[in-house]
């Protein structure tokens, strides 16, 4: 862990802080002369440094906390961050921390690997067309059950365990999301797009300090459930809530100008710039839908959107509480 004068550079915050840190400043107790024995002086020197580091970090995050206090932050959770136990715990801890300091986080999740394993367990063969899964009626049943019943509630209980209170919802609850068939639903089955969002059910929850956890399943006007891409749900929800930030956790470092050069990470870019990058072919295939979702959100008034590296522990805190960030920020 590198201790630099400016704590805004790559600070890794992991819960247990090592106690063997060189002190950045002389602890106050040692500045006043004391008539005590050398041994007790040495003991006094060992304890304050760790505490000093902690309060330094806290006080330097003050401007960020002040800037975002009371603001809504929508986080889309998926990819590697969902699969690894340690990463999952770090995301949950970050959410609880953000809720505690006064931000209003909202978590949106997709299904990822769970759906496949359950389809296997129930003996349903997955059908693929052009590399994309076909969601027929029986698959949709499983998707709905796994996303809303298992993944959602597991996340809710993790957040509860970490000290905050979470409420798990799907698009159906409170008519939060209304779906309509996506343009390619004819080939791919019950894949939906967001037709409308009614965020009034979330208001009392966030006001009372709960963290909503939203599963990206919603019904259309006739009650038929659809599976909607979680990035899309996160983007439209952020627009509906007037969110300050939309954050998409991914398995890559962000948008790289040169695919093979990790140091060519684009830290900040605007809509014009990112559209130019897509035209120039610099944005990889899987990244394009995420970027489009970000642009759609920005066009509807979300202040900033970020695509960050979910494989880095505490990437959420890095993105929100530091100037460096943890990926690419797309602004309006």
């Amino acid at each position, binding site marked *: 862990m590198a201790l630099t004068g400016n704590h805004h550079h790559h600070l890794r915050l992991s819960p247990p802080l090592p106690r063997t840190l060189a002190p950045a400043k002389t602890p106050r107790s040692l500045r006043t002369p004391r008539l005590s024995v050398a041994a007790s002086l040495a003991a006094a020197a060992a304890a304050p440094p760790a505490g000093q580091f902690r309060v330094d970090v806290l006080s330097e995050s003050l401007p960020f906390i002040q800037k975002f206090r009371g603001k809504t932050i929508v986080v889309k959770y998926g990819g590697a961050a969902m699969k690894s136990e340690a990463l999952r715990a770090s995301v949950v801890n970050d959410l609880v921390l953000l809720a505690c300091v006064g931000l209003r986080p909202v978590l949106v999740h997709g299904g990822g690997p769970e759906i496949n394993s359950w389809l296997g367990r129930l003996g349903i063969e997955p059908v693929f067309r052009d590399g994309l899964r076909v969601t027929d009626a029986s698959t949709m049943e499983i998707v709905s059950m796994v996303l809303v019943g298992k993944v959602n509630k597991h996340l809710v209980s993790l957040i509860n365990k970490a000290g905050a209170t979470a409420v798990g919802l799907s698009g159906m609850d409170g008519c939060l999301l209304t779906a309509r068939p996506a343009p390619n639903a004819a080939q791919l089955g019950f894949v939906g797009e*967001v*037709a*409308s*969002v009614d*965020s009034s059910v979330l208001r009392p929850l966030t006001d009372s300090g709960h963290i909503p956890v939203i599963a990206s399943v919603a019904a259309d006007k006739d009650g038929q459930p659809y599976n909607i891409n979680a990035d899309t749900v996160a983007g*439209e*929800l*952020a*627009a*509906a809530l*007037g969110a300050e930030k939309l954050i998409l956790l991914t398995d890559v470092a962000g948008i790289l100008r040169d695919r093979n050069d990790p140091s060519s990470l684009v830290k900040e870019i605007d*809509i*014009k710039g990112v*559209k130019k990058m897509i035209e120039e072919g610099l944005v990889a295939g899987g990244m394009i839908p995420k970027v489009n979702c970000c*642009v*759609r959100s*920005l*066009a*509807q*008034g979300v202040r900033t959107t970020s695509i960050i590296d979910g494989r880095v522990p505490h990437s959420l805190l890095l993105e929100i509480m530091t100037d460096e960030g943890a990926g690419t920020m797309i602004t*309006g």
Partner: protein
Amino acid sequence: MACANAMARPAALPARDRQLKELAFGASSSPLLKFGGSRVRRLGGGKLHGARNASALPVVRAESSTPEYFPDAKFYKVEAILRPWRIPQVSSALLKMGIRGVTVSDVRGFGSQGGSTERQAGSEFSEDKFLAKVKMEIVVSKEQVEAVIDKIIEEARTGEIGDGKIFLVPISDVIRVRTGERGDKGERMSGGQTDMFSTSEHLQVVDPSGKLYLASVTRLNPSRSF
């Protein structure tokens, strides 16, 4: 004859042919030329009385490059209907380029989207639903119109359906309520473009009828003296 490309307002940048003004230096003492229907520009070093001056002052002929609008007027109102959350960005960009008078109002509207829907607050809205927009009205003189339009588009465009529209309306006159000034004086604002971009070169020019004007000149090539 030496030619130099000059632009009277460096901030109105895009390299559009119509906005390039050509200044031709000539030894002939031809009279001042009127252009654009309004202002008269003649550049020379020092005071010029009439045009029969036999001194070695170069005569500069400025070619008109103000855009053609129909109907023609001295002032135009740029009416932009935009997304509400883009307004702060647009107005601070306009302030930076020296546009100081703007009126905004809350309006609702829809446009023809050819069947596609506009998204607002996460929901899709079809053609006949009124959505909240903001109308920005700016009255500027003819030469500033293109720059203002370009700046508004640059700041407000997102590329998604619902970005809005800009209308150009000719204005007969601009009157300041406080002083009663009309016309150019009524339109001119302190701290605006004229003040921002004037340089130390202030020349007195005379039009054929004998009226004296004060012209401000932007020097682009410092080594050249007019």
